[in-house]
């Protein structure tokens, strides 16, 4: 615990980074990672990204949203850490689409820790490495502590948020995050389908055309693209 707190303090000494960013930065520092990210989830769906450390990780986090599979989704569902030491190992086919795209984005190992409070899952702390390497026992223990610190940090922040609103430090998505949901709404109205169905269509279009979800969403919101009505 003290190791984690010291690393968080060090991470904060450089500038005015938020507590959430510091948890990610401490994870990167302590566990020799290439990046870390905190996702907030409700009912198994990614509802927001609270903190991301290191460039490129946002893309990998979003990939899981696009594909609807990956370690974060599994960690949230199982409420247990999901540890993948080598995404490129063909012997392990847990998430074929995510593994392929992740490796292309420079991720070789991923470790996802659920942020949980009793039976409720708040989200996932995902740790990434750019080389295949398992977490050692001590590193695994540190990962669990970091997830606990992240959970308490999120709750502490949200406890001080105005009613009905998300604490500003927890609303840390890039601009295209909103566009993905706006595009979902537009597709749902265009095709007269439910929002869930609209999101699935958006996602399949991105996947089938090998494009990032945010690009497809941007095109739809700008009305440069209209998905075909179901046959």
């Amino acid at each position, binding site marked *: 615990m003290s190791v984690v707190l010291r690393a968080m303090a060090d991470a904060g000494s450089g500038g005015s980074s938020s507590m959430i960013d510091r948890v990610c930065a401490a994870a990167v520092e302590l566990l020799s990672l290439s990046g870390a990210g905190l996702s*907030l989830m*409700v009912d198994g769906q990614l*509802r*927001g990204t609270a903190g991301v450390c290191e460039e490129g990780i946002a893309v990998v986090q979003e990939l899981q949203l696009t594909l609807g599979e990956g370690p974060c989704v599994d960690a949230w569902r199982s409420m247990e850490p999901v540890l993948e030491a080598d995404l490129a190992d063909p012997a392990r086919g847990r998430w074929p689409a995510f593994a392929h795209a992740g490796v292309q984005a420079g991720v070789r190992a991923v470790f996802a820790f659920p942020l949980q*409070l*009793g*039976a*409720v899952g*708040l989200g996932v702390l995902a740790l990434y490495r750019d080389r295949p390497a398992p977490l050692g026992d001590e590193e695994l223990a540190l990962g669990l502590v970091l997830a606990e610190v992240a959970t308490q940090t*999120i*709750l502490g922040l*949200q*406890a001080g*948020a105005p*009613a*009905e*609103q*998300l604490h500003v430090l*927890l*609303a840390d998505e890039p601009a295209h995050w*909103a566009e*993905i*949901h*706006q*595009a*979902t*709404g*537009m*597709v*749902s*109205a*265009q095709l007269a389908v439910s*929002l869930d169905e609209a999101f699935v269509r958006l996602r399949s279009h991105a996947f089938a055309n090998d494009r990032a979800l945010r690009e497809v969403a941007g095109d739809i*919101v700008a009305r440069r693209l209209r998905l075909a009505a179901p046959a």
Partner: protein
Amino acid sequence: MTREERIVATFVELADTMVEPFDVIEFLHRLVERSMELMDCAEVGLLLANAAGSLQVMASSSERSEALELLQSRNEEGPCFECYRGSRLVFGEDLAAEADRWPTFAAAAVQNGIKSVHAIPMRVHGRTIGALNLFRAEPGRLAERDVPLGQGMADIAAVALIQERAMRETRGVVQQLQGALNSRVLIEQAKGVLAERGQVSVDAAFVSMRRYARAHNNQLSDVARDVIDGRLGAAALAELSPGAASRARP
């Protein structure tokens, strides 16, 4: 079972019930029941201060003790009330002789066959949150060996109540967090739905939703839900603020 074994079994049993889902009323009733069995007393009652600082009966071994507790909280008079207010042990060794000290309580107690009372404060971190009261059918002090046990029961009740409060508060924050996370997504989705139905930009759709919410004193997330469910159409929103769409364009 020896007395010691029964005491240990009771504390284990009480600790066992302090896990989620934690039923605080059931816990306090059990605590009152066990206090009756373990200590030399006729009735047991437990009073807890509410947010406003007035005492409420949380658990009682019988109608008789409940009535005596209610009387004290209503009149703000009696050993339990004094115990809570002063945050200290209060004895009423012979209630028949205490008419001056507690006029209403002492009379009612004696009438109900209660001759003495022992009130123990429930404290956590220096704060008094209520009182555990042992009523006896005979005059005199509580048996020497029951005094620390009574305090132990009061302490475990206090700890359980504080823990339950913390759990409840955390659950509230979790719910609020999830509600806020869902609302944000809902609002963005509604912007898209409305932009498409009204053939306006998403920014313009947002402006009309916000205007509608303000005019009707609604939460933005409720308006968003109505838009998505089709209860609120583009026409209704545009009617309220003609030209809102064009003004919203940069």
